[in-house]
């Protein structure tokens, strides 16, 4: 089967086509760029539907010989064969679908990007390849490879197509994430050196089955495993990000072009959550226990810290950036609970926040396009001039604050449900974040949409007051509607996703021995 390879690399076709298009033909570029995100979307939806109908996902696994490092005399014979391996389970499939959906929507929303469109789309598609690959990779080497692809693509997208302080933001992003990646690389190197394989499944076997453990090239002591897990968690804490490693996120959220932030907040942050779940819990379940308390506490800190800071921001993008910090805290809370409810909650929160953040930034992009500002002090009463937009924005705010019936609630509820079983007091403190979430999201959104109409102020850089502004256009309304529909669908019937996760979760829980 080459299904997964096709899925992951199909956006490359778009890059290839774009290379032949002249820079000035922006319409053509927009069409090709958008169309190139459709094949992964269709393929991933197909896979999802098949999976719901009971198709075993293991049959999609791919493995090809890639590099053999066995010719060095100091390496043992069979070891260090690195293969090209792709494979997915229910967990990765969900993230792949999320990526593919957001990829297409971000491409549509990129209509707002006007300069250097050709390069922009090429990097956007590269970013999508990276993100799809990260979730489809079945071994560490390829996981890392795809991760670095996203890093480079994101760096360029922020640095070249961002706002005023784009370079600072891009370097900030590169530094933090590069550091995280370096740490991750060390962990991967040690693991591969000690086990001789980079394959997730094989690694999992070797690390905890006594029989398979005999195949280790060098034994891993419990202490070493704790260090490895610590390194892994720290690496992903950079990318999640966990307080106090979150400053880069704020800059990127503010400076990057909104469609890129849709993907960044929607998918890239989730890679960290995915990594913590897949590698942290998947490979080191016993050691994870030792970190669970810290992670949960860090999660609560994230929630409250992000929420309290979001409360005093005047820039809508800042509010959303800090709310991302807060929401990622919920993911940590779920992981810290380390039980089925908690992990499931963390996954749901990741996906829900992916959808919600994408919706928010789609709308913020529109706002910036129409008014030239996203400062909530300079806007007001937009519900009168842009009713549809305001409706969507309000929906986004409600989803952010975790209204039941929308996706955000399922994640928060399930994650907290998990933590309440382990650490009720900590969880209760964290639950206070829900109040602040309501406060900051309503404050920000109501200031923009409700109240006195402040639309007559001239937008930045223009002397004439803008009397009438266009409400959502078709190309904005359709993605927004799709996102809202998905948010509602997940919120109303979460079993649709939970059913896919069941098998993957069960494996993990077996690893945890609970």
């Amino acid at each position, binding site marked *: 089967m080459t299904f997964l390879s096709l899925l992951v690399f199909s956006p490359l076709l778009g890059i290839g086509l774009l290379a032949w298009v002249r820079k000035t033909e922006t319409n053509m570029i927009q069409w090709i760029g958008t169309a190139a995100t459709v094949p992964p979307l269709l393929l991933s939806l197909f896979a999802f539907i098949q999976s719901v109908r009971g198709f075993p996902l293991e049959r999609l696994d791919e493995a090809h010989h890639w590099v053999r490092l066995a010719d060095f005399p100091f390496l043992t014979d069979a070891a260090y064969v690195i293969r090209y391996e792709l494979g997915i389970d229910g967990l990765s499939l969900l993230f792949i679908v999320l990526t593919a959906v957001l990829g297409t929507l971000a491409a549509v929303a990129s209509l707002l990007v006007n300069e250097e469109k050709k390069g922009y789309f090429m990097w956007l598609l590269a970013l999508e390849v990276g993100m799809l690959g990260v979730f489809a990779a079945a071994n560490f080497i390829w996981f890392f490879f795809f991760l670095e692809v996203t890093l480079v693509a994101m760096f360029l997208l922020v640095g070249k197509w961002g706002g005023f302080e784009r370079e600072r933001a891009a370097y900030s992003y590169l530094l933090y994430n590069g550091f995280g990646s370096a740490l991750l690389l060390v962990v991967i190197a040690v693991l591969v050196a000690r086990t001789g394989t980079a394959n997730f499944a094989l690694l999992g076997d070797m690390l905890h089955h006594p029989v398979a453990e005999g195949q280790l090239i060098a034994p891993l002591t419990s202490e070493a495993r704790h260090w490895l897990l610590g390194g892994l968690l720290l690496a992903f804490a950079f990318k999640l990000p966990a307080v*106090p490693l979150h*400053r880069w996120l704020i800059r990127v959220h503010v400076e990057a072009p909104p469609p890129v932030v849709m993907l960044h907040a929607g998918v890239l942050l989730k890679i960290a959550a995915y990594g913590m779940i897949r590698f942290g819990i998947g490979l080191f379940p016993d050691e994870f226990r030792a970190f669970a308390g810290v992670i949960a506490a860090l999660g609560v800190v994230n929630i409250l810290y992000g929420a309290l800071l979001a409360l005093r921001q005047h820039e809508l993008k800042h509010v959303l950036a800090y709310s991302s910090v807060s929401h990622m805290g919920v993911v940590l809370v779920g992981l810290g609970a380390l039980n089925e409810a908690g992990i499931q909650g963390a996954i749901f929160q990741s996906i829900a926040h992916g959808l919600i953040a994408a919706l928010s930034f789609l709308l913020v992009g529109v706002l910036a396009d129409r008014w030239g500002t996203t400062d909530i002090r300079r806007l007001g009463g937009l519900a009168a001039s842009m009713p549809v937009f305001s409706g969507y924005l309000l929906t986004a705010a409600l989803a952010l604050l975790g209204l039941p019936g929308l996706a955000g609630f399922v994640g928060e509820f399930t994650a907290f*449900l998990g933590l309440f079983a382990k650490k009720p007091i900590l969880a209760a403190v964290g639950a206070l974040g829900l109040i602040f979430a309501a406060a900051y999201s309503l404050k920000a959104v109501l200031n923009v949409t409700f109240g006195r109409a402040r639309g007559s102020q001239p937008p930045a850089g223009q002397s004439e007051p803008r009397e009438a502004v266009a409400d959502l256009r078709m190309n904005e309304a359709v993605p927004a509607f799709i996102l809202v529909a998905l948010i509602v669908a997940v919120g109303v019937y979460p079993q649709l996703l939970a059913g896919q996760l069941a098998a993957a979760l069960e494996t993990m829980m077996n690893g945890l021995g609970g």
Partner: protein
Amino acid sequence: MNLAWVVPLFPLCSFVLLLWFGRKWKQTSAYVGIAATLLSLLAAFGVLVSRLGGATYEANWTWMKIGDATLTVGVSVTALNAWMLVVVALVSWLVHIYSQGYMAGDERFSTFYAYLGLFTFAMLGLVLSPNLLQAYMFWELVGLGSFLLIGFYFYKEEAKAAAKKAFIMTRIGDVGFLIGVLLLFWQTKSFDYDDIFRAVGNGTLSPGMTTLTAILIFIGAIGKSGQFPLHTWLPDAMEGPTPVSALIHAATMVAAGVYLVAALFPLYEASAAAMMTVAVIGGGTAVFAATIGLVQTDIKRVLAYSTISQLGYMMLALGSGSYVAAIFHLTTHAFFKALLFLAAGSVIHAVHTQNIEEMGGLWRRLPWTAPLFLVGALSISGVPLFAGFFSKDEILAAAWTNGSVGLFWLAVAAALLTSFYMFRLFFLVFAGEARHRHDGAVHEAPMSMTAPMVVLGVLSVAAGYIQTPWFGSFLGEWLTDGAYHHEAAPGWIAVVAASVSLAGILLAWLMYGKRTVPRDWLSARAPYGYELLRRHYYMDDLYRSTVVALVSSISRLLGYVDRYLVEGLVQFVTGTVNAIAAAGSRGQNGQAQTYGLVAAAGLAMLVVIFALTGGDWL
């Protein structure tokens, strides 16, 4: 009964349809909303009737599986649920009809109806919930509905603030509720009411945990039902259109709190401390809010404080162990409070002001509204033969038999205050000479507004007779499946209740009707006390200067931490790297000996490390 799930579905359809097509349909939207709620009301009647002969019905569907645990959603038709279903659907239907007249001509007419549909859907869904999870979800949706409707006039800054406040204040309660629910889940491994009651019954749930969860859930009810100290949003919620106030205050939003405690009654019964908390908060709120109601000048605010006070009554009933009395009062209150609000809406519609100082002499001008308002006022004051009298009497009897004498007298005091401020309102608005400016334009409301008021007026009298000492206690038997026995309360309680309410009316008449007692009697004698009441005991200011100030100062502090400490730390790291780089580049001075020195030092370092560690680590 198998079709109980369709009851909330009609308003939901109305919401979705109106959101989608509302702009096209304009004024026709009202008919969609009215038809949907009518269907829902008929279905609710059907459920009630079939429940009459049948047993409790419950159906569940999987919502989400977590490992082995399955979370479900479903419908359950118990006696309480079926009863509430009818009350909610009825009031909602009447409000839908009324709004057609009241909101006519509004630009966002269809949106208004869409929100009404959502609100009704949420409340009906809450009432039908068989488990706490679903109850929580609809609970929040009820909050959403009220938020949207309170903020309906979004262009008014006050409406914006009020909507935000309503949502956040109730969210505070909701978090308490959520924590309680989650704790209960791990104690009982279920969200189902039945499983929880079983756990309470067989002692799986420890007494301490019972009290804790009961109180936490009660915090949710405090937030929703506007009990002290989370009541401040309710008067501000008057910024919404008046029919919304009727809906919020009568049947949906605030009733949810009382309903929740009633639905979880076995949990509360198991904990004396929780019962006591409920009773004390309820009784306290009843008097507290009534005193504020005495001096307000906004017609809707007076009614809002009376709602808080009456909800306190219901909580007092629940805390005193009389579940039936609470639901009874909830029902009668739903009717007369809806009536009062709709009548108030009609008055506002006529004179375009909400300030009672600017009204007066409307009795003749509003031939339908005025008598109906009087009916409502008599009912809420507890004048004998009106519905309010019976339900209030039941509560007083419950408080007395429960042995809490203090709470009993508190309730009596609240009754006195209630009848006083209601008639103060009545006399100021309808009696005397006209003080308003648009005298000529005042006219009675259209048929679509008066008709629902007439229905409610009838119900405000008739609803009392479903539970009386004389004609049998239909409601009590219905709610307890026949196990109800009317406790023999001393007969003098009814006499006290009646005389207290008449005394209140008399006092109001003396002050505002006949004017034998000067109006500034209180403000002249106790200006500070008067100011205290007028400013709602400074609760808003208190919150602003404590909770809000605290949160915002923490937030500001964290802002500095974020900008200077966290960012500073990062700057320090990057600065160090930069400094090392600068030092390194200073070494690049072209001096061969410097390069040699660096190389030699590096070599020396390696050799030293090697010598010290023995090189084993390699």
